[in-house]
């Protein structure tokens, strides 16, 4: 069929349903996609991640180029105001007319707001879109107590996100058990304490009767049917959805609770289909993601006239995306003949419901092994002879035993067969690639281990290809490093030209800059344009475009003289905030770019590298100097280690600590590199973290002397510098390759000596104090804009180091 004869399909709505229809139809129709929101389709299933720091870009389902590549004409910020099915024309709010042969309504739903007195008070938010998340996140700062009305999937995820932000939060639920639509009573009883463990207060059988507000109209409490109250200054409503049917109703289509569709997903007008949360099929409106993909696939078949386009309904499946709680459900949680495996102490619960000899439902809590296999049995209503045997054998099943039709990724509706085909046909070699191509694992990510397993099976057990340094180049770190060595390349520009990708997306330039500097032992040609702004001006950019200044204070030890100079700088430059950091440093915040050189000059202290993917701080406890428990001189070793490492750039930041005894006051167990004095020696820990990820470091080795500990730390540092992917923290690296492989490298005497030699070569060529650029800026306006000048340097104070 030529392009001109292709069916013109207008997809109305850029949610997961609209995107899914586009994916199914791509290449077989001329598609226009009208998105009401000002963004390309994003993964609403993971909305909670927006509350905890993810950007909308990270949730975007496909890059803009995907739509262009598939000939899809996307209109964002283009809500459809009128639809004329007979004429085949839709009109956007801005007056743009879009014609179509067939239209698919994917208008989704709004949050259901229950008719509670006072629900329109300020501080009451729904949890539905990015704008809601922005309001909730900003209200969460300074909020003393938040209440989430609704103890279903969405409510629990909202409560979890708020708890992660450090907000005290209560979940208020009308029913006497959580997630009553998906769980039976015993599973719900196990879930409640697991949720409580995350710091979320759970109140069941609480009917909210009124939202009370203060004189300013802002929410102050909830009042319940039993007369009790809950004080709160933020309320998030997550009780359900209301299908968005206004456009369909005005277009004269039959509307009940949702837009009524038949088994061909067609509305009362043959030209118009409806898919997703806005559609009502056989009296059912689905509010979860999995059925949407089923419907989109059928709708595409109907539009193409493929013949077998009959939708008979979906088995609902759900996955709770809350860290530390594994919960997967499918179909009915109760009824029929059920077998249950329950491990009391661990709180694990596995249930399979069988009706008329066929799998009808599954609940897996705390132990979700074999989830894909069991979900597939429920989805296909597979015959079950021995339910107990299926339940136990599923936990041993590998990805090889899954049928091709088994859905691996529930977020994006991708089944095993599609993943295997993609791996074979496109010769994919890494999990990163498989995720990018198939979208399996691009949602909540919980199925990524299965994706990796399928890849390993297809590759016959061969190791995965390394991930690309930047997907736009399709070249790995090793390939690019070999290119630098082979052609003796000196800079990012040389590498860009030589590696022949012909593109330069910008995103990978800092990674390439690190790679060139690392391979050449810091004897490279520095190019400022390849560096992030922090590395151009040696300061950390803040949310208002100002910068922060952190001087070097090795081991966290300072002096009266340094503190006096810092105080003088704060006064003279009217620095709005002075803050002690978690790494035992002093941070001057709110500094303008033009002030940086003069402040550095007046501080007379070297850069603390607190802005770079580099060796940051070595934190210490007082150790044997003053502490009555100290076993080792942690301050001395901390200062020595910091002096030995400072100025070195690394794949990601490296935070270290030295503790003088296992009481671990310097928190060395949770640092990238941690040294701990014990009876008779020192322990060296690597791969610890205590930020967004919390991980105790692995014990690399126990050594005898402080010098041995420092040497081993430096050997590990160089190993990490040479082997980790750019942007990979040590904890990710240690987990990925395993501590045994790292030990084999850094404890081998010959290899350790070679690593230490390369460390010395690189260290010798570092710039120990980038702040000296104040005397000789790389470009005239390095620390200024076109219409400003850097502030003049006042002479260094007496006694200051330079």
């Amino acid at each position, binding site marked *: 069929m030529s392009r001109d004869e292709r069916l013109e399909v207008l997809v109305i709505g850029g949610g997961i349903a609209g995107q899914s229809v586009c994916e199914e139809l791509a290449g077989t129709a001329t598609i226009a996609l009208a998105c009401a929101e*000002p*963004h*390309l389709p994003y993964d609403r299933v993971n909305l909670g991640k927006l509350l905890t720091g993810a*950007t*909308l*870009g990270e949730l*975007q389902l496909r*890059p*803009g180029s995907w739509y262009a590549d598939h000939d899809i004409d996307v209109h*964002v*910020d283009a809500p459809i105001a009128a639809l004329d099915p007979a004429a085949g024309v839709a009109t956007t709010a801005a007056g743009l007319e879009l014609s179509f042969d067939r239209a698919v309504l994917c208008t989704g739903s709004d949050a259901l707001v229950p008719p509670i007195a006072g629900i329109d008070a300020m501080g009451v938010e729904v949890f539905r879109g990015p704008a809601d998340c922005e309001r909730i996140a900003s209200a969460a700062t300074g909020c003393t107590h938040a209440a989430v009305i609704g103890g279903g999937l969405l409510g629990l995820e909202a409560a979890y996100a708020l708890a992660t932000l450090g907000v005290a939060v209560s979940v208020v639920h009308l029913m006497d058990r959580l997630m009553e639509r998906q769980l039976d009573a015993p599973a719900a009883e196990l879930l409640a304490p697991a949720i409580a463990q995350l710091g979320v207060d759970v109140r069941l059988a609480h009917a909210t009767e009124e939202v009370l507000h203060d004189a300013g109209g802002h929410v102050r409490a909830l009042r319940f049917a039993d007369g009790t109250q809950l004080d709160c200054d933020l309320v998030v409503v997550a009780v359900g959805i209301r299908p968005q049917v206004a456009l369909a109703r005005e277009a004269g289509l039959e509307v009940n609770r949702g837009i009524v569709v038949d088994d061909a997903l067609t509305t009362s007008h043959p030209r118009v289909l409806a898919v997703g949360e806005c559609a009502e099929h056989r009296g059912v409106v689905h509010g979860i993601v999995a059925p949407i993909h089923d419907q989109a696939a059928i709708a595409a078949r109907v539009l193409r006239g493929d013949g077998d386009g009959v939708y008979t309904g979906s088995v609902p499946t759900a996955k709770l995306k809350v860290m530390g709680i594994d919960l997967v459900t499918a179909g009915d949680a109760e009824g029929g003949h059920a077998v249950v495996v329950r491990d009391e102490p661990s709180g694990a619960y596995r249930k399979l419901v069988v009706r008329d000899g066929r799998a009808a439902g599954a609940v897996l809590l705390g132990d979700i092994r074999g989830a894909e296999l069991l979900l597939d049995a429920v989805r296909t209503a597979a015959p079950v002879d021995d339910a107990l045997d299926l339940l136990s054998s599923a936990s041993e099943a590998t990805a090889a035993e899954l049928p091709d039709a088994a859905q691996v990724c529930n977020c994006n509706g991708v089944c095993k067969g599609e993943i295997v085909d993609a791996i074979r046909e496109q010769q994919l070699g890494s999990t990163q690639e498989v995720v990018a191509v198939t979208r399996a694992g691009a949602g909540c990510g919980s199925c990524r281990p299965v994706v990796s397993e399928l890849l390993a099976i297809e590759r016959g057990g061969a190791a995965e290809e390394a991930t690309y340094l930047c997907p736009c180049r399709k070249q790995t770190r090793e390939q690019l490093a070999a290119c630098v060595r082979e052609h003796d390349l000196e800079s990012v520009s040389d590498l860009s030209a030589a590696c022949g990708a012909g*593109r*330069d*997306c*910008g*995103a990978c*330039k*800092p990674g390439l800059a690190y790679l060139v500097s690392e391979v050449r032992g810091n004897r490279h040609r520095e190019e*400022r*344009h*390849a*560096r*992030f*702004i922090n590395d*151009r001006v040696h300061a950390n*950019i803040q*949310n*208002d*475009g100002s910068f922060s200044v952190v001087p070097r204070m090795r081991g966290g030890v300072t002096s009266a003289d340094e503190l006096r100079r810092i105080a003088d700088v704060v006064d003279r430059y009217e620095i709005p905030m002075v803050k002690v950091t978690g790494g035992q440093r002093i941070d001057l915040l709110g500094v303008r770019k033009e002030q940086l050189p003069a402040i550095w000059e007046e501080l007379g202290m070297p850069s603390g590298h607190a802005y770079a993917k580099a060796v940051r701080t070595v934190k210490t406890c007082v150790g044997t100097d003053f502490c009555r428990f100290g076993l080792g001189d942690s301050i001395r070793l901390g200062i020595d280690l910091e002096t030995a490492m400072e100025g070195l750039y690394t794949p990601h930041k490296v935070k270290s600590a030295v503790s003088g005894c296992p009481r671990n006051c310097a928190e060395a167990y949770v640092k990238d590199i941690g040294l701990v004095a014990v009876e008779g020696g020192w322990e060296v820990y690597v791969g610890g973290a205590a930020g967004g990820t919390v991980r105790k470091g692995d014990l690399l080795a126990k050594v005898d002397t402080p010098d041995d500990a420092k040497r081993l730390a430096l050997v590990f540092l160089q190993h990490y510098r040479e082997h980790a992917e750019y942007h990979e923290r040590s904890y990710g690296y240690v987990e990925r390759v395993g501590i045994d492989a790292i030990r084999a490298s850094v404890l081998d005497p010959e290899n350790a000596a070679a690593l230490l030699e390369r460390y010395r070569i690189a260290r010798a060529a570092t710039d120990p104090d980038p702040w000296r650029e104040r005397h000789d800026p*790389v*470009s*005239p*306006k390095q620390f200024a*804009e*076109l*219409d400003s000048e850097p502030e003049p340097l006042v002479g260094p104070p007496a006694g200051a180091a330079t």
Partner: protein
Amino acid sequence: MTALAEGTWVDVGAARDVPLMEGRSVRLAGGRVAIFRLPDGWAAVEHACPHKGGPLSDGIVGDRCVTCPLHNWRFDLDTGEQIGGGAQLRTFQVREREGRLELAT
């Protein structure tokens, strides 16, 4: 590009003050403008990222696009369009004359 009458160009600084593949900003009536030196010429867009006001002149430039240093929103420097989103930057005409940079008002 439509021809502009003489006199609508404003001198905003020295061309040498903007290094290759970097940007610097300047105040123009109505707000700040970020000016970038690309391998084959110049580009100018409004300076504040429409997302959270990040300073686009401090962004990394590649493929005729700039990436905001705060949250990685990416914009086409020729059209001002956000890559992968619906935001739009104002663009400005910019030229180099005898070592000076000029913006069209």
